[in-house]
């Protein structure tokens, strides 16, 4: 426990100094890595901790981003103030769509969530309620400011995004060790046994879904603020696949794994920009090889997690 804390501190210190020796382009790459890390961490609650095959995470992200973009462009509300509201909207959407499908198992849930993200994308393209701006999306989102300080350059966003990432990591670590987090873990290990020992499985799954959605929605506002323009294509199924892959390849259920996964899957391809055409080809092949040779991910959660499950098994959640 001690050593992992030191590791986190070293990582935080290294990250904090990054913008001083990165140029604007690479700072922006790191910003993207950070955004994906936050999103993947929020997906990790659903997929990694609870074991729900959820491949429609981009839908929640989109709801958050569009909520912020619409209110910012029509009413001029500062975009970062909209963060809680964007989270609530995404959470409500998750509640509505997840409630009827939460009992579906494995592959069926996977397919339904794909259906949901595609429906959301089509709705955005078709300019639903005349507010989403159709295929062109929404532009002219104003830059956020904090205490009168205008956030506009990549360095500024770097601290905003990674600060939010740090908060996410902290909260998720608390969640992991909470009674609720242990219940999720137990549901992942053995759903029937979890139900048998008094955990309300459907309720816990739904809450996990909503937590993930709220966080993705909040992350959507940062994305809207950073890009100042959003379009339906940014929230397509492909985004969901990247997030899903980050969680699985990094190590499902492990926070350091998910962060490493974001660096490898979002940052590393930038290094190979020159090979643009073959970049995704290698990406696909790497996914296959990775699953064949190390299917638990790069940094799987340590064995201590099974001790927690065992404790739960023996003495109930304390």
């Amino acid at each position: 426990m001690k050593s992992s804390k030191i590791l986190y501190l070293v990582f935080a210190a290294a990250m904090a100094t990054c913008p001083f020796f990165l140029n604007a382009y690479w700072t922006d790459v790191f910003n993207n890595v950070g955004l994906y890390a936050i999103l993947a961490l929020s997906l990790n609650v659903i997929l990694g901790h609870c074991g729900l095959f959820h491949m429609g995470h981009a839908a929640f992200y989109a709801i958050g981003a569009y909520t912020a973009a619409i209110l910012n462009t029509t009413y001029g509300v500062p975009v970062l103030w909209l963060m809680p509201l964007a989270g609530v909207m995404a959470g409500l959407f998750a509640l509505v769509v997840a409630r009827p499908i939460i009992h579906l198992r494995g592959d069926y849930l996977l397919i339904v969530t794909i259906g949901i993200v595609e429906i959301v994308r089509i709705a955005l393209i078709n300019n639903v309620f005349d507010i989403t701006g159709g295929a062109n999306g929404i532009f002219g989102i104003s830059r956020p400011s904090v205490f009168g300080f205008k956030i506009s350059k990549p360095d500024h966003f770097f601290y905003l995004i990674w600060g939010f990432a740090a908060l996410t990591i902290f909260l998720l670590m608390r969640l992991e060790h909470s009674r609720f987090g242990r219940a999720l873990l137990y549901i992942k290990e053995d759903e029937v046994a979890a139900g048998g020992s008094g955990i309300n499985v459907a309720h816990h799954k739904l809450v996990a879904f909503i937590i993930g959605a709220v966080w993705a929605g909040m992350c959507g506002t940062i994305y809207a603020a950073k890009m100042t323009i959003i379009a339906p294509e940014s929230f397509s199924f492909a985004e969901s696949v990247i997030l899903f892959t980050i969680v699985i390849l990094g190590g499902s259920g492990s926070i350091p794994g998910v962060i490493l996964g974001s660096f490898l899957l979002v940052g590393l391809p930038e290094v190979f920009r020159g090979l643009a055409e073959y970049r995704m080809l290698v990406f696909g092949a790497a996914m296959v090889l990775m699953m064949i040779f190390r299917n638990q991910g790069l940094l799987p959660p340590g064995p201590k997690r099974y001790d927690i499950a065992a404790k739960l098994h023996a003495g109930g959640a304390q």
Partner: protein
Amino acid sequence: MEEFFQQLTNGLAVGGIYALIALGYTMVYGVMKLINFAHGDLFTIGAYLGLTLLVSLGLFDKIGPLPAVILLAVMVMILVAIIGAILERVAYKPLRHSPRLSAVVSALGASIFFQNAIMAIYSPKFLVYPHDILPKAAINILGLDIPVMRIILFLTSLLLMLALYFFIQKTKIGTAIRAAAIDQGAAKLMGINVDRVIMLVFCIGPALGGAAGLMVGLYYGQINFSMGWMYGLKAFTAAILGGIGNIPGAMVGGLLLGVIEALGAAYISIAWKDAIAFCVLILILIVRPTGLLGERVAEKV
């Protein structure tokens, strides 16, 4: 009323294509309990191989349209079947005893690989099939002008589906496939080579998918490296609609989905056409997850 019947025939023609692709999903799911996400891309490969062979061999000028199309279809089916078998060998066989999520990710990886391979080899642009090779004529049936292509399309898919059905039901190999779908372990004890059965399933499914790709190319005239994704997803919807793992189910589901989509596009909104299919998918899974023809103890292939 006339528009209704026009849309109905169009829906049946497109539904035939969905059904052909759906068979590949349903067979693989029946035997391996795996959603082969790369199946839609095998369909795309079929369309691209068809175009390449068509242009490079110049069959239409040499032997006339009908034999040319048949020969083309046979070649495409064999080639795509080989690719399907290689895919199984490389991406799925090593994962047969791994958690299911690994196989899903592997399938997604294979799908990304295929899409980008097609894009790198050909081009990211839409490619166009030569458009003057097939009959544009329409024939009059019961007062309706129906394009000949549509009828050919429907009959071809029906023929392929029936051939598959009899192959599965009446031959010894078909019996082996059905047995492996019910219980792989027991099938092994009965002397069935399950590895070979799975390999075979990965040849038949992609072959049918490849044929569907060629048909789409000939029918719509243009193809794109990423089209397999949407067709694949809809075909999968069709498979679930009919009851996944169930071969007649995939046929019925495909045709039904094609008709629902065509009528939905005509009477609700064409812009929401794709969303209609996904709404059907979600509704079916909520209301009747086993599909229309699926039963709890249904024989699964």
